[in-house]
Structures are given as C-alpha cells and as structure tokens.
C-alpha cells in the first residue's frame, strides 16, 4: 500500500523533483531486497546510451573488489553443487559415531544417525540452488511479463498496480506455510509457492522502469516505424529493462533460499532430497541445535554465504551501472 508515497503508481514518468519521493519509488521495497534496486532515471540514461553500456558496466564492476569476491563465492557455490558427487558420497546409511564434533575424518562432524554433515551440506547445495534458480526464474518471467504488459497497455496498468499492491500486503511466509502444508512438501511445490509470492516484487521494480521507458522519445519513434507491438516489446522494451531484471534474479533467488530454509525448518521441506534447510530441520528435531553446534553452524554459514554474496554482487552491479552512486561529497 502506501501508494501516495510511491508516485510510480500514479505519475511514473515525471522527473521527480522530490528526491524523497523518488527514493520511495525505487527503494522503498519491503524486506530483504530493498537494498539494491536501481534508480530509474539513471537506468534510462544507460538504456538510451545503447548496448555499449554492458561493457562499461562490466569494466566498472571489475574495479569493485567486493563485487568480484562475491561473484567468486557464488561461482564456488555453483561449482560445489555441480561437483557434489566428486566432493562427497551421498549422505546415506548410518555411521558408528553419532553426533561427533568436526574432525579430520568428518570435517563438519556427524549428525544423530552418524551421517557426515559435510556431505549433507555439499549435496544440500544442489537442492538449495535448484530452488533458488527455479523460483527466481519463474518469478522473473511472470513478474517481468506482467510489468511489461502493464507498461505497454496503459489500461491494464491500473489493474497491475492494484494487484501488485494487494499481493505485497499479504503476509507471505504464513501463506507459504499454508500452501506447502496442504499441498505437500515437494521441491516443485516449494518452488511454485515461493515463485507465486515473489513475482509482485519483481513486477514492482521492473514496472517503474518500464513505465518510464515506454514514454521515451525513441519508443515513439519505434511505434512509427512498425505496427508490431511484439517487435517493439522484444526488441526495445525488454532490453531496456534487462539490467533491473538481472539484479532482481539474484535477489529473488537469494531470498528464495531463505524462504525455503524457513519452510524446511518448520518441517515443510522435501524429505527426499538434501537441502541446507533439511540439515537444520533434522538438527532441530533431534534437539541438537545447541549441543551439537556443528549441525547448526555449517548449513547456516552456507545460507549466509549464498545470500550475502548474491546481495553484495548486485549492489556492486548497480554501482557499476550507475555512475552517480560513486562518491560524491
């Protein structure tokens, strides 16, 4: 809600004279991803500049050590997920030493059935990253489609704005709990549920930029050249909003990991595959979270590493794209 403070809903294209209101437009995002949403005017400049912006952005990005480091961490996590079979045996069966602390043999210790926690965390990265990728991909596609459609057909836009505001005002985690419990905790269900409640966030962010872009002169020019809406949307509008979408992907994905872990922790994770949330859930069920700290620490660190790296990387990406955010005194 709070629509008056979000001029995006009413008069998105006017250059904002009130810096505060502008901030609300682009930054007033609830929850974890508020941080790194880009400012629309800067995007527009970039868009107008055309394709070479990508190279400039990359060059600027590489100059940020934190961004590069974050990207590296993300790369390592993906590599761990891909190489899981090489790194550790699939955690199964039982072991003789139950709840053993970390040792040379079991780097991350063992759980209450004597299984190797290192193997669980390594294999867990697969499911966790899968949920992240799946949920964010769905949310991005849906969210972008709705946003672009709203921007292109103004009559649709009022509805889009309303629906987005309405869905954003729902208490998301309890609704996810409800659906996951009733439908049954399967990885696909969890991906769908998280996507179903994440797309409005994407729509909101993409929409504010898309609305600005459709009113730019070069779009009018395109309209004169071709009657095909599809052509303009795919060739001009979508590329224009892509930078925002890239950032959204990373942030939605990392938030999906936290949501999935939260659901798993409440017993609503898929019992057939290992995920970081499941390691935590089994530790919780065993009443071992405080006495066997290794069961809690390592999966939590994995989650932290992923979300932190994703967020820092997108902040760096934004800074790289937006020359104005560089130091100003």
């Amino acid at each position: 809600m709070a629509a008056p403070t979000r001029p995006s809903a009413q008069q998105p294209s006017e250059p904002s004279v009130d810096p505060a209101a502008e901030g609300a437009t682009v930054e007033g995002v609830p929850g974890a991803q508020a941080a790194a949403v880009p400012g629309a005017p800067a995007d527009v400049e970039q868009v107008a500049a055309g394709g070479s912006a990508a190279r400039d952005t990359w060059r600027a990005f590489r100059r940020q050590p934190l961004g590069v480091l974050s990207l590296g961490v993300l790369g390592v996590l993906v590599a761990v997920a891909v190489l899981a079979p090489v790194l550790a045996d699939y955690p199964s069966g039982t072991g003789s030493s139950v709840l053993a602390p970390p040792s040379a043999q079991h780097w991350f210790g063992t759980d209450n059935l004597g299984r190797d926690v290192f193997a669980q965390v390594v294999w867990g990265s697969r499911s966790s990253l899968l949920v992240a990728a799946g949920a964010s991909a769905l949310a991005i596609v849906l969210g972008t489609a709705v946003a672009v459609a709203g921007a292109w057909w103004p009559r649709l836009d009022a509805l889009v704005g309303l629906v987005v505001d309405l869905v954003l005002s729902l208490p998301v985690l309890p609704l996810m709990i409800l659906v996951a419990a009733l439908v049954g905790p399967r990885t696909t269900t969890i991906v769908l549920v998280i996507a179903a409640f994440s797309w409005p966030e994407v729509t909101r962010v993409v929409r504010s930029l898309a609305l600005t872009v459709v009113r730019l002169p070069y779009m009018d020019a395109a309209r004169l050249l071709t009657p095909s809406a599809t052509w303009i949307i795919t060739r001009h509008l979508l590329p224009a909003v892509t930078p925002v979408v890239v950032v959204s992907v990373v942030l939605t994905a990392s938030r999906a990991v936290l949501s999935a872990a939260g659901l798993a922790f409440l017993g609503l994770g898929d019992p057939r595959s290992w995920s970081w949330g499941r390691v935590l859930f089994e530790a919780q069920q065993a009443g071992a979270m405080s006495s066997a700290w290794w069961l809690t620490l390592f999966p939590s660190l994995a989650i932290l590493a992923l979300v932190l790296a994703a967020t820092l990387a997108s902040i760096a990406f934004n800074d790289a794209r937006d020359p104005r955010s560089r130091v100003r005194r």
Partner: protein
Amino acid sequence: MSRGSRAAAAVVAAAALALTACAPSAPEGEGSGDGGATGSGVGPLVVATTTDVVNFNPLIGNSRTDSWVTDLMYPRLLHINEDGEKEAALATDWGYSDDLTGYFEIRDDMSWSDGEPITAEDVAWTLQSVLDDQPAGTLLGQMGAVESVEAVSDTRVELHLSEPDAVVVPEVGFWAVVVPQHVFEPEGSLADFANDAPQADGSWVSAGPYALTEVQRGQSYTMERVEDYPLADDGAPNASEVVFRVYPDVNTELLALESGEVDLVANALPPSQVERLQSADGIEVAEVPGLGYAHLVYNMDEPRLAQVDVRRALAAAVDYDTIREVVLQGQAVSAGSNPLIPVLSQFAPEDAEEYAFDPQAARDLMASAGVDDTSFRLLYNLTDPVMAQAAQLMEEQAAEAGITLELDGRERNAYLAATDAGDYDVYLGNFAIMDDPVTNFRLSYLPGGVINYTHVDDPDLTALVEEAGRQLEVADQVPVMQEAAEIVKDQVYDNIMYTQNLYIAHSDEWSGFVVQPSELLSVVNPVSLANATTAG
C-alpha cells in the same frame, strides 16, 4: 526526534497500551493457592510442553498437552500400571454382574474443588452424554457395545450392553474422564462446550490434584492445587502450583531445562539427547515404558500386496536391529513381530521371533511371487522425527533387496487424510497406546475396523478375534489371542517393529514422580505430579 522514529515509537506505545490491560495486579492476601492443604507447599513445578492446549473439554481434546492438563482436573476411573494392567483410580472395583451388564464401583471420598462430592451420577451423566452428544474424541469408539449408562447408587454405575463384551468395562474405565455434571450440564451439548472459562472464583472446577486458574495462550497454563486428593500419598498434592509452559521448539525447551527455568520436560526426549542429559549436572532422566508400537502395514487392496509372499519379501527387506540401534539409540524393545507386544505381559508369547533381515530371501520371495515391478510407495508422517529417519533407512535397506521404496512423507494432516483414504502401498506409523489387545485386534484386523490399514478380511482371524471378545476372563482370552496373533504374524497382516521406551528429563531437585507407561501418562500423570516434591 525524527519522524521515522516517532512513527515507530507510536506503534510501540500503542502496543504497550494494549498490554497494560494484561498487566497483572498483585494478589490480594498471601496463600491464595494453599487453601488449607496439608502438604509442605513446595514451590511451583514448571512443566514444559511443545504445544498449546487445544481444547479444555477433556471429552473432545485429543492432543497430548490437552490430556496432560485436563487429566489433572478430571479423573479417570482406571489407571494403567507399569505392567500394562488396569488399576483402581476413581473406580475401586469393576467388572460384569451378568452378560449384558458391566459396573464400576467408585470411591466415596473424592470431591470437586467447589465442594460438591463426586458421585456415580457424575460418571453416569458423563458416559451417557458421550453416547447422546457424540463428541469427536477417542472414547466414543470404545463404547460401541454400550446402550445406556445409569447410576444405581451414589457409588455404583452400571453399563447396559447390547451384546456380551469382555473389554468394554476396562476400556471405558481407562479412556473415560469424568466431568462435573453440575458444571457441564447447563452448558448444553458436550460436543460443543469449549470449557474455556473459569468459574466465578477464578478457577476451573476440578477433582484434583490441580485446578486451572490462569491461561496465557502461547505461553503458560497455571494450575493451583486442590485441598484434598485421596490418590496422593499424603492425601493432598505437594507442589502449590503446576505451571505448563509452551516451548514450540524442543531446542529452546531443553535450554530452559538446563537453565533451571523449567523443572520437567513433558514430551519424551529426542533419542540422541538422552545420553547427554543423563550425564548433565542437575538433571535426571526417568525411563518410561512405551504402551504402543511402531509398525509397517501393507495395503492388501494393491494386487501385488494381496500376495503373502510379496508381504513377506517386504518384511525381510527391513533391518529392524539397525533402526532400533541407530534411530532410537537402542531405546526400544523388539516386539518379535508379534502384535501382542511384550509390555502386555499377560498376553505376550515368550519366544516371539522377529522377521529376519535377509535381502536375498526378499529377492527370492519377490521372484517366486512373479512380481517384476518392485516399487512401492511408503507413506509416513514427516513431522515425526523417528518415523522420518526410520523411513530413510528403510529406503536404503530395501534397495539392497532390489526393492524400491518411494518415500511419501507428508505433513501430519495430509498423512492422516492419506491413511484414512488408503492412499499408500506401505504405511509406516505408530500408536501411542494399545492398552487392550482385544480392542486393538478388533479395530485393526476385523473388516471395517477403523485402523484396519491392511484392509484384511480373513475369516479365520475374524472368528478368533470375536471369540476372544466373548471371554470375560483374561486367562481365557490369552490362548485365543495368541492363536490370532500367530495368523497375523504368519500372513504379515501387520508388521510390528518395536515398542519405544521413552525418556523424560527433569531437574534433580524434584523427586517422587510415579511412572506410568506411555508418553500420555509418563510422569505427568496426576498421581505423579501430586506426589512430586523438592523435599529429600
């Protein structure tokens, strides 16, 4: 101050304002809870539980916390001792005066906390109302053979039966909780009464040992002791108060025990925590025998599972020892694959031998049955940690025998719904209390029985179970039941894996607890809490 912080402060101020309504005022005069009781009046006993009370009406509520709290207020006619035998509680004598009449003889020295005596009228009214109003609890299912209930004197209640039934009296005696007629009757149907408000004096009417006085949903349930409780050793409860506190997360619950904020954790410890807490300073761990079992059931509506060899193959594809040793840390007793579990010492055969874990034999049996598709769906309750981990091991063990168990863990309600609909090939689950084998066999193995999850309909078995139900003496039931149990075991109509022993942790400052079997009774039963003390 900034606008932002001012807005936020306003929110808090509003919330604080709302809270002032809850701010308690100091009690008027000391000793409000001591009301002349003869005990030493030791400090409050704080009991931790993981869930809130759902329903204060003991004839509706069926969660553990419900029972723990209401059992301290509404007496059962019979208790169960550590050997699984019924023993006197409110009833002192019970049995059958003829084929179609059962009776209870009750104590004359118990009274409700408002001074009214507990009479046979209360008992008869409670039971008759259950028949009339049909509240959705466990008791109604035990009363199938009861036509009407009547108080024939102040201390004698008679049950009029539609057919001879050897188990209805002990079963009703254990499952029925007696409520005060003068409080419940004016409230209308027993099936709708929430019993969620205290009387004018601020407490619920209770038969003891404790009466609920304060409910803080999501946080605590405070109960004060009553003046007299004849079932306690001293004739009255020792602790001045029992406070149930809610800790949804067992980890927090255990931290609270270790920090001394809680004296007793009512729910059984996770198996892997038992050893650690046994050696922890200031904590003692009581062992409580289980009164139920965990079992695997094969759905005979599935054509492959209708073949006994396929069921035998599946039974040979589970390593029972490993499950008990690892998942349960050895805290379980094998049932010898026999539904007459060892805790029922009068019934259990002495030399019951468990199905052997033999992957090769399982392969051979499966082959001889001519079954090529050896993939089966295993249904279990995802939120039961022991079952969930056992299921994971079973999947791997079955794979050794070339059998695919497809894990189908579901959240509790979805699991119950699937169970009810017969939506499974193999079912993994447990029963907390199987106190009476005849009742259990009826419900489990007769066609149409409500927990006949195998969907078995075997005329020989049915005849034996019905025969046992007609034997009024336990000694006469035993041989019939053992014969029936042999059929169940031989035909693998039910695969009983073990009875889990339970461990309850409490502060070593408290002693005097009385152990009764099962997690429902354990050391949280009324006699136990009444006798608990910090003295000595």
